[in-house]
């Protein structure tokens, strides 16, 4: 008997009653943490260390409270909806994403309209609620698809690197042996010079077909928003999650103040969010094999996302059969193996690039080393970030607190926040993914079927 883990019977009686709109306190804290993170992302720029970093630290505090919070339930306070509206409004003032003037006006106007849509959902009027949710999802999806069309060449190296590597793969050339054009024309000092595609090969297996079909891999990122919301709605309804929590989650994901910036920049975190929500849906439905496959796919897509896999391993090491572990691990490794066989040294160089190449923290990173580097002060070593993530995972895993899906997601968010705050690289796309984890975790925290 694990003393820290509540009785599953308590879960059934103490959690939400969808009809009454009650959610657990941990869900409320998780939403608050997610909204603070998105606010931090929206004010990135000159206010990075004045407002952004303190907001991230506050978000970490709320995320820890979400993990530790009791399962007591309460009605969703109107102040949470107001906080959602306030965060969405920050999209009006978010940094320019390099689109034509009309597009910048439209995306800011959409954020302003989003505030009203949030208010309409908050009224809980069934007709207006449904309409506002549909408009928010459809409008944001449409703008996500328009973004790559109108911002063809954003001034960020992620896009030419991913595009060049995807096209190389389509032409039968090893993607880790090609060089992308320097979008900065030599005008960038990141503490390293990108000489190889620095992301996982699984990303190319997704992006290459989309590049072949539509000419731009970023349409795959645009597609992630409706897929995420569809999976979340489907999974949470099956799991008996709170309708209020689901409404808040949908509005936060759809009206994320920097959602279009993520698509524009070619960051692959929207793909991670799809996999994270697929993991949650499978786990809540009791399909441990599918959940294991999904959670092991996360580090196969992005190097830093180790926490959910580790915590899932701690929590369900006995529930998942050895065959399921092998199959899931094999599927994740299968995305890497062909590239290793093809050219091992180049593939390893690319996959390990982010850990080996940097010579100093990025002064634009929303992290403590980033702040120290920007002030030309001494900073901690690069390995502290990964160590922080592993230590938090080990602490939560050993304390046996991470048995249910919600706790695994929320604790993963805590571990990643610690890693990013101690990291040499920590940008808005990283924090947006953590915000998504918190939102998914919040919905899972209200599910009646979350198996312990």
């Amino acid at each position, binding site marked *: 008997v694990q003393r820290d883990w509540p009785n599953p019977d308590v879960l059934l009686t103490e959690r939400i009653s969808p009809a009454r709109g009650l959610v657990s306190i941990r869900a409320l804290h998780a939403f608050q943490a997610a909204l603070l993170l998105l606010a931090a992302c929206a004010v990135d720029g000159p206010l990075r260390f*004045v407002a952004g970093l303190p907001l991230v630290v506050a978000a970490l505090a709320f995320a820890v409270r979400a993990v530790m919070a009791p399962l007591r339930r309460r009605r969703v306070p109107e102040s949470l909806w107001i906080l959602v509206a306030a965060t969405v409004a920050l999209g009006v003032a978010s940094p320019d994403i390099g689109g034509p003037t009309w597009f910048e006006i439209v995306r800011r106007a959409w954020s302003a309209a989003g*505030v009203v849509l949030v*208010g*309409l959902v*908050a009224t809980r009027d069934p007709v207006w609620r449904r309409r506002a949710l549909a408009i928010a999802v459809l409008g944001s999806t449409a703008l996500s698809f328009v973004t790559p069309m109108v911002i063809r060449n954003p001034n960020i190296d992620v896009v030419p690197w991913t595009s060049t590597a995807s096209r190389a793969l389509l032409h039968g050339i090893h993607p880790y042996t090609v060089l992308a054009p320097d979008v900065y024309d*030599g*005008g960038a*000092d990141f503490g390293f010079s990108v000489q190889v595609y620095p992301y996982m090969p699984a990303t190319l297996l997704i992006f290459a077909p989309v590049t072949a079909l539509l000419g731009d891999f970023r349409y795959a990122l645009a597609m992630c928003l409706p897929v995420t919301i569809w999976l979340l709605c489907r999974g949470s309804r099956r799991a008996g999650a709170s309708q209020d929590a689901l409404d808040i989650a949908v509005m936060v994901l759809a009206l994320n103040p920097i959602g279009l910036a993520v698509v524009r920049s070619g960051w692959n975190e929207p793909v991670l969010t799809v996999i994270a929500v697929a993991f949650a849906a499978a786990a809540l439905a009791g399909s441990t094999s599918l959940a294991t496959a999904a959670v092991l796919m996360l580090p196969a897509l992005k190097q830093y996302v180790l926490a959910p896999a580790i915590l899932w391993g701690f929590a369900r090491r006995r529930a998942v059969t050895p065959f399921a572990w092998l199959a899931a691990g094999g599927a994740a490794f299968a995305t890497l193996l062909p590239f290793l066989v093809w050219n091992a040294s180049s593939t390893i160089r690319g996959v390990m690039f982010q850990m080996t190449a940097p010579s100093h923290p990025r002064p634009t990173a929303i992290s403590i080393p980033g702040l120290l580097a*920007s002030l030309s002060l001494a900073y901690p070593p690069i390995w502290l970030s990964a160590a922080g993530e592993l230590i938090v995972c080990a602490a939560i895993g050993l304390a046996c607190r991470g048995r249910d899906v919600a706790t695994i997601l929320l604790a993963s968010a805590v571990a990643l926040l610690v890693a990013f705050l101690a990291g040499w690289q920590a940008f808005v796309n990283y924090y947006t993914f953590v915000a998504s984890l918190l939102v998914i975790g919040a919905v899972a925290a209200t599910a009646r079927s979350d198996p312990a």
Partner: protein
Amino acid sequence: MNATVLRCIGGGVLALALWGVTQIGYAVWLCPFDQARRNAQHGTTTVIVENGERVRRTHDVLFVCETTHYLGPMALHYDLDCYCAPETMSVTDVAQSVDGSCVADSTGSAARCAHGHCNRYLP
């Protein structure tokens, strides 16, 4: 309109107001370019930019420019900043472009834009 919708709109307006106040506070009290000018005036240090992610591009030249920092129509203070501009632009072109007074940066250890760093690109 429903009171809940109005309160949400109020939350949005408050968030934007807070953002605006923070921006103004930053511009008035924490502006790094104003600090660079004061450092130069007091002889604390002549270096304007010594780190950051922006460095001069291929075929760029560095310029040090003094410009007026406006808050809407109101002049706040003077900024001293480093600009990266194509070598085809003269000092006059750069000064006209930034609406201030500029000089080409020195080279070597006397450089005020250290290690080729700049904060803004022209054009």
